[in-house]
């Protein structure tokens, strides 16, 4: 079975480099879908987000989710990278790459991994405002639970 690539790192990543690693030397992959999540600053008041994680468990949860996706969508390759530490607006936070012979499985695989990663991987975001005040922890969103739960209902696809 395909072994997912899982990394938790403070450095940024390069999408093309990560895709090249996944498809190198192969000619059986027809579709590659990537999701990258970026640090967003709606109001222009954010200096950075600080990403805290549970070392060891973060990698283990990401691997567990990735393996579920590989099996469910018969993926040929899966990469999941999550950054930690301070991340400025506009910078990358997370990357998921799913590869498959056909496009819908690649879309679904990447989408599935993101939905579970949001709700199960032990990462937390704290806001560091530009004004130097002590920022808030980003609250969890019910919408993220709903997005995850659609994968748990009986399959109609």
């Amino acid at each position: 079975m395909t072994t997912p690539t899982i990394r938790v790192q403070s450095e940024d990543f390069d999408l093309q480099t990560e895709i090249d690693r996944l498809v190198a030397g192969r000619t059986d992959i027809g579709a590659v879908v990537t999701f990258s999540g970026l640090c967003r600053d709606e109001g222009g008041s954010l200096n950075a987000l600080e990403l805290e994680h549970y070392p060891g468990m973060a990698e283990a949860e990401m691997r567990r989710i990735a393996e579920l996706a590989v099996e469910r969508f018969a993926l040929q390759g899966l990469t999941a990278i999550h950054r930690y530490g301070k991340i400025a607006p506009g910078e990358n936070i997370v990357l998921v790459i799913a590869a498959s012979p056909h496009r819908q499985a690649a879309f679904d695989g990447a989408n599935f991994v993101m939905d579970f990663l949001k709700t199960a991987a032990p990462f937390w975001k704290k806001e560091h405002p530009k004004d130097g005040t002590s920022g808030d922890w980003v609250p969890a969103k019910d919408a993220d639970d709903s997005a995850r739960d659609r994968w748990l209902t009986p399959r109609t696809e």
Partner: protein
Amino acid sequence: MKVKLVYFAWVRERIDKPEEEIELPAHVVTARDLLNHLKTLGDGYEAALQYPEVIRVAVNQEHVDQDEPIAGAREIGIFPPMTGG
């Protein structure tokens, strides 16, 4: 039983330490029992665990429901809902 507790995000900030080892009293059987026990240990714990139903618990780095027993745990993680991705 001695167990290592690790805290994250605002749970860590309110308890004001990233981790500690504690001796578990005999009446602490489930993850929920543990949270209720910790709440009695001082103001920081009280503030961190004020709404225990939102708190997530991991035993040996795996998510558990709060009504699961924690016997045999080497490390218990206690943290708010995750907000990564």
